[in-house]
Structure formats: C-alpha cells, structure tokens
C-alpha cells in the first residue's frame, strides 16, 4: 500500500490532484446548490426566529470551516516543522485565504442575523470575540507569508504563528462551553441527537456542511497546485539566472 508521504512529492501530488480535483469540485458545486436551494426554498420558518433561520445554512457551515481550516493549517504546519515537506507548507499557505473568507462569512451572517434576533449587530461575547481574533490571526498569517522573501523562513514563522493561533481556533469552538455567558447559543449540531436542531432543518444543513467541506477541499487543492507551479517557476528562473551569470 502506498504511504501518504509519497504525496509530499510535488510531482505525485500534482498527478493525484489532477485526477481528483474535477470530481471534488463537481461534488462541491452540486452539494452547495442542492443544500442551499433546499434550505432556502423548501424549509419552514422557525416559530421564534421566523425566516431568519434560513441563515443557518450559511452561518453554521462557514463557521465550522473557519475553525477547521485553521486546524488543517495546523496539521500541515506541524508536518512542515517536523518532516520538512514543502507541499504541506504550501497547502497551509493555500488554505489561509479560503479560511479567512469562511470567517468573514460567519462573522457577517452572524451580525446580520443578530441584529433582528439579539437587537445588536455585535456583542463582545466570548465566542464572537474569539472568532474576531481568529480572523485577525488569519490576516496576520497571510501577511507574514507575503512579508518574508525566503520561502522556508516564511513557512517556519507562519507555522509558529499557526500554532499560537490554534488557541483561538479552539476558543472559537468551545468558548460557549468554557464561559457560560454571552449571547451566542451552544452548538447547533451535536453527536447527542437531543441537542440537534429539528430534522427539517438538520438534513439540508448537513448537505450544506458537506458542500462547504468539499468546496474548501477543492479550493485548497487548486490553490496548492497554484503554489507548487509558482514555486517551480521561481526555481527555474533562478536556475536560468545562475546559468547566465
């Protein structure tokens, strides 16, 4: 059986993702379209939230991905720090812009929903605040990659930043449990069926979550392929320069 580390070879990674990416992208588009149409057009209003409950199909999956994108970056960063596989460092770099967009969607949809439901766009509630800090960490992470010219140094320093930011990714997820205060309610999804939202909302929500996960995966694969190509172009140009000198 092939070892997973074989795909740390850029050539093998490119070959594999060339075959996988179209399928993941089609599945992502299909599940997003089905989930969002199902949720928007074919689910009833909630007896307390009215039609604003439909925002759950965007807010919950994007918030989930905002946190999990950071964890994916953490795993990729650890692989870089421990095993020095360049593809993993580039995958972490590729995931950050996707994660930041997920975070912005979660923050915006939360604010838009919060205004009529809580009577405010924003509150310095533990979960909201830790989410905002996570957003700032994403920006810092992207900025750090851009600021450092040497690719390996950039990968090292961003990996360390990623480790530190993981604290806020954990807080974003568990802030409601750690501090039993604030406006934000507990998890909408749980392994305990008693705590889940009603099935009529739950099933389209699961499809939307699958859509967001697949979209994240397809974008990270696409962007990692882009980073590998950019890295190779840079190396070839540098080699040319040395040959000319």
């Amino acid at each position: 059986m092939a070892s997973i580390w074989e795909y740390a070879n850029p050539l093998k990674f490119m070959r594999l993702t060339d075959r996988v990416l179209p399928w993941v992208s089609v599945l992502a588009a299909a599940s997003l379209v089905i989930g969002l149409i199902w949720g928007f057009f074919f689910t009833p209003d909630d007896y307390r939230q009215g039609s604003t409950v439909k925002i759950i199909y965007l807010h919950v999956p994007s918030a989930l991905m905002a946190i999990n994108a950071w964890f994916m970056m953490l795993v990729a960063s650890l692989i870089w720090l421990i095993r020095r596989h360049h593809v993993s460092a580039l995958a972490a770099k590729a995931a950050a812009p996707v994660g930041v967009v997920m975070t912005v969607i979660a923050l915006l949809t939360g604010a838009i929903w919060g205004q009529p439901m809580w009577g405010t766009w924003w509150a310095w509630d533990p979960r909201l605040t830790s989410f905002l800090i996570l957003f700032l960490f994403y920006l810092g992470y992207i900025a750090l990659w851009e600021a450092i010219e040497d690719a390996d140094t950039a990968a090292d320093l961003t990996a360390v930043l990623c480790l530190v930011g993981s604290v806020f990714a954990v807080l974003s997820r568990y802030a409601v449990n750690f501090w039993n205060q604030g406006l934000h309610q507990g998890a909408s999804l749980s392994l305990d069926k008693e705590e889940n939202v009603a099935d009529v909302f739950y099933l389209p929500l699961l499809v939307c979550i699958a859509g967001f996960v697949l979209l994240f995966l397809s974008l990270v694969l696409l962007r990692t392929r882009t980073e590998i190509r950019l890295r190779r172009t840079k190396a070839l140009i540098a080699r040319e320069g040395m040959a000319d000198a």
Partner: protein
Amino acid sequence: MPDLGKYADTVLSAYGVSIALLLVLVWLSLRASRKAKEALAKVDRKNG
C-alpha cells in the same frame, strides 16, 4: 420565492453577501491558477 415576511431584507442580504464572497474567492483562485500555469509554461518553453 418563499415568503420571508418581515425578515426578507435580513435573509436576502445574508445570502447575497455570502454567495458573492464565495464567487469572488472561486474566481480569484481560478484566475491565479491560470496565471501560474501560463507563467510556468512560458518558462518551460524558454528552457526547451
């Protein structure tokens, strides 16, 4: 179109902003991919 009642603006703006952001992200990712592919092909051609 479902009847969104008094929250129509709220729901539609949440969907509008989110879908727009996702589309921009996909577009930028595809554009960057195309540019990187072209740049590499150019260097490869130059090197024979």
